């Protein structure tokens, strides 16, 4: 028997383990340092734009492009008839796949549009011999019909529901694609005609949405359910890879050649002159070979990745505003970051508001007129107690735009004079409202505030609870109603089971119609009127305004509707968040997260020689 030393056989084991660990650790660090330069040397001179998003689309099917993330991808992988001008603010419509703006009949009911010639879908096995065929007007008809086919699980039908002659009937008759829809016709391969039931001046805006993107029927039939992750379109980019963490798009080499024109896109030399956009003139988008999109939901992780140089663009998380901004108003980038990045601070095209469920007799409408009045007073007191200054300060770094009512500043109809109030709360008034109407700590109803359980939403709830505490609302009477998933939360509030809910509404197009409809009676849950607000005067005004072209008269009606909701104390509203976007100075670009949205990808360009020359001047 060999006599081993005491530690003999064990020590080598440990030693080798330690060695293994060390070698792994060191191996891990070495490439960490070398990797970048190596890959940069080895890579072909392809141009890459690395974008980041704070959420991921689950489906790339335009029919399901309901989130801002899905819409960003849909408008790049597919073509829409219209888009918004890259640089013009306020936003202006611009033909995309369509050849010019629609020809509208005098009664506003018939829209005729032509497609640009020579537009092709990308090559794909779904087509005969794998060659992408020409895009036809019939494809658009098919794509809109798909929205109304239950088998598609589409989410965009609401844009056109009850608006296009025969389309809803087409669905009721079993969604047979052979069947024609009288109000949605391809007159020839390149001519489309839409006939409306009643005037709908927002129609052209809806044709900028990812929902309205043109898909080829062959691909839908060929891929079935997998069409959602296998896009076949005619947009400026095509998909290379896609998963829940990232998407890689590559240039669609067959994309139509349209030279960029600064003046046509609404370039403003004063505010945009420093961005290096002049060099784009005459070049045909898409200008980048590759777009890599990282989906990073966690703010801090996204920020660190950006700071480490792994991303070219970020919507700065509010928690980082401190470190990013030199000044708050106007937002100004600090010097270190300004060396490498451009900043733009935009108001979101929407607003955040907290709705009372008016259908809930504990706080909303009540059959007993006396209680109804008391509920009204209670709601008004809660609104009065809500500390917008503090809400803005804590959650939006004090640079959110607080306003009164339901028409947000992003809407052209916003009344700057009247509704941009400094929103001082009046606790005394709130307390008086309560006591004058017989409310006290004993008889106040328990308030249930619904939210999906995330850190921020919980903090917003706790803040609301502390606001209410200041008007004598007992802490134990303000309860959280948490939901683990958004779907379950949505089910609850769409079934009118949630008493108080915070809604972030992103406008679909720059027209206040899109926000006033949130309080139109017939749109009550499960529609988007989550407050279940129902006021006959308001409803009548809504119907009156719905066919009107943008005009001073219509704006006046919108503003009257706005005031009605304010007087009824139906919602605690609101704030438009200011989005701080940063992007790499090496790029000539003007990123946007609003109505231009995903359309800006095609215009992003490396800031080539001219950019460098300008900097040297």
């Amino acid at each position: 028997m060999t006599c081993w030393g005491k530690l003999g056989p064990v020590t080598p084991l440990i030693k080798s383990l330690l060695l293994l660990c060390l070698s792994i650790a060191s191996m891990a660090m070495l490439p960490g340092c070398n990797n970048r330069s190596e890959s940069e040397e080895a890579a072909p001179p392809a141009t890459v734009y690395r974008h980041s998003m704070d959420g991921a689309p689950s489906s790339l099917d335009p029919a399901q492009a309901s989130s801002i993330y899905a819409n960003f991808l849909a408008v790049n992988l597919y073509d829409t008839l219209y888009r918004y001008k890259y640089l013009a603010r306020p936003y202006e419509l611009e033909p995309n796949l369509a050849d010019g703006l629609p020809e509208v009949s005098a009664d506003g009911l018939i829209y005729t549009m032509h497609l640009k010639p020579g537009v092709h879908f990308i090559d794909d096995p779904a087509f005969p011999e794998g060659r992408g065929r020409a895009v036809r007007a019939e494809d658009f008809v098919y794509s809109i019909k798909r929205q109304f086919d239950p088998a598609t699980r589409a989410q965009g039908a609401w844009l056109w529901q009850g608006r296009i002659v025969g389309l809803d009937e087409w669905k009721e008759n079993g969604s047979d694609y052979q069947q024609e829809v009288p109000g949605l016709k391809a007159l020839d391969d390149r001519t489309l005609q839409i006939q409306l039931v009643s005037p709908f001046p927002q129609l052209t805006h809806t044709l900028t949405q990812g929902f309205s993107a043109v898909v080829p029927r062959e691909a839908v039939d060929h891929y079935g359910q997998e069409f959602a992750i296998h896009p076949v379109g005619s947009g400026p980019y095509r998909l290379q890879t896609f998963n829940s963490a990232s998407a890689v798009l590559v240039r669609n080499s067959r994309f139509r050649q349209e030279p960029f024109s600064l003046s046509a896109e609404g370039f403003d030399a004063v505010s945009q002159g420093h961005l290096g956009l002049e060099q784009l003139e005459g070049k045909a988008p898409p200008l980048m070979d590759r777009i890599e999109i990282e989906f990073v939901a966690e703010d801090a992780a996204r920020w660190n990745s950006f700071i480490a140089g792994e991303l070219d663009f970020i919507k700065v998380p509010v928690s980082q505003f401190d470190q990013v901004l030199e000044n708050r108003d106007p937002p100004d980038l600090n010097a270190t970051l300004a060396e490498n990045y451009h900043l733009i601070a935009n108001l979101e095209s929407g607003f955040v508001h907290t709705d009372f469920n008016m259908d809930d007799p504990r706080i909303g409408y009540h059959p007993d007129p006396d209680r109804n009045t008391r509920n009204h007073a209670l709601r008004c007191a809660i609104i009065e107690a809500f500390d917008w200054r503090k809400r803005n300060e804590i959650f939006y770094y004090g640079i959110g735009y607080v306003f009164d009512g339901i028409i947000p500043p992003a809407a052209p109809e916003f009344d700057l004079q009247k509704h941009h109030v400094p929103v001082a709360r009046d606790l005394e008034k709130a307390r008086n409202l309560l006591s004058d109407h017989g409310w006290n700590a004993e008889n106040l109803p328990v308030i249930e505030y619904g939210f999906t359980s995330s850190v921020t939403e919980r903090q917003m709830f706790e803040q609301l609870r502390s606001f209410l505490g200041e008007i004598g609302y007992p802490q134990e009477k303000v309860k959280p109603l948490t939901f683990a998933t958004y779907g379950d939360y949505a089910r609850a509030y769409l079934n009118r089971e949630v008493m108080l809910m915070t809604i972030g509404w992103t406008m679909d197009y720059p027209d206040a119609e899109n926000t006033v409809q949130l309080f139109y009676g017939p749109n009550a849950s499960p529609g988007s009127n989550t407050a279940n607000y129902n006021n006959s005067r308001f409803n009548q005004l809504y119907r009156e305004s719905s066919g009107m072209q943008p005009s001073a008269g219509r704006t006046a009606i919108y503003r009257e509707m706005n005031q009605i909701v304010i007087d009824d104390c139906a919602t605690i509203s609101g704030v438009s968040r200011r989005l701080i976007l940063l992007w790499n100075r090496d790029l000539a670009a003007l990123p946007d997260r609003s109505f231009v949205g995903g359309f800006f990808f095609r215009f992003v360009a490396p800031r080539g020689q001219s950019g460098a020359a300008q900097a040297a001047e």
Partner: protein
Amino acid sequence: MTSDSRIWRQLKKNRAGLAGLLIVAVFFLLAAGVWTGILGQDWSDAGGGRWEPPGKEFWFGTNLLGQDIFQRSIYSVRTAFEVGMVVSIFSTVLGAVLGSLAGWYSDSWIDHAILWLKGVLDSIPFYLFVAAVAYALQGQDWAMHIAMIATFWTTTGRLVRAEVMKIKSREFVLSARAIGLPDLLILSRHVLPNTLHILLIQTTIAFVAAIKTEVILSFLGLGVHDGVSWGLMLAESTQEVLAGHFSNFLAASLMLFALLMGFNLFSDALQDAYDPKQAAI
């Protein structure tokens, strides 16, 4: 059989174990302070500025909302004890009952049924199961507790079953059966008391596991609904640490660590005392 006095003597010799017990006792006093309304009552007030550094007014600083992190971390002691106690006691009792039944009636249908149930629960990935229970009991305050109890009892059950099968063949049990005492009486009077050491140790282990699980579940949004816990504080901190605000993280993680360490040291000492074969002393 190990006598109680010997166990106690063993325990007293184990300085680490005593230190652990002391730590747990201190935390228990804090929890009692919260229960009785002396401590941590202002955990929800948002009186400070955002992310104030530690100072005279706010010992551990404030969080985003301006809430006092010291108050919140103290109030969380109560949450931890509530979760820990409810889960450890119920899961141990459940494990004792099912385990002893399975052991006593070993190889009968009762045993098979219980073993099957245990096998089923052990085969579902833990967090998935807990998440699923949390959904099924959507919005219930006790969803998290029930989920943990439903899974934690299986280890206790297995140990108790084995021990009961051993004890069953002992002389005093055989003689009790011979004189015709009813099964349940023998089980509760003579058998179960002899598994107490297992139950005691398992309770401490389940306590630690419950608190740890609460942290993960609260981070995933499936844990504490109303109130505050170290898990919720850590979840908050994940949004703060990378921006350089460490108060939430430090307060929650250090207190969490201290309590768990205390429990683990105590649990260790218990195990050593009952099983000197394994002891390092």
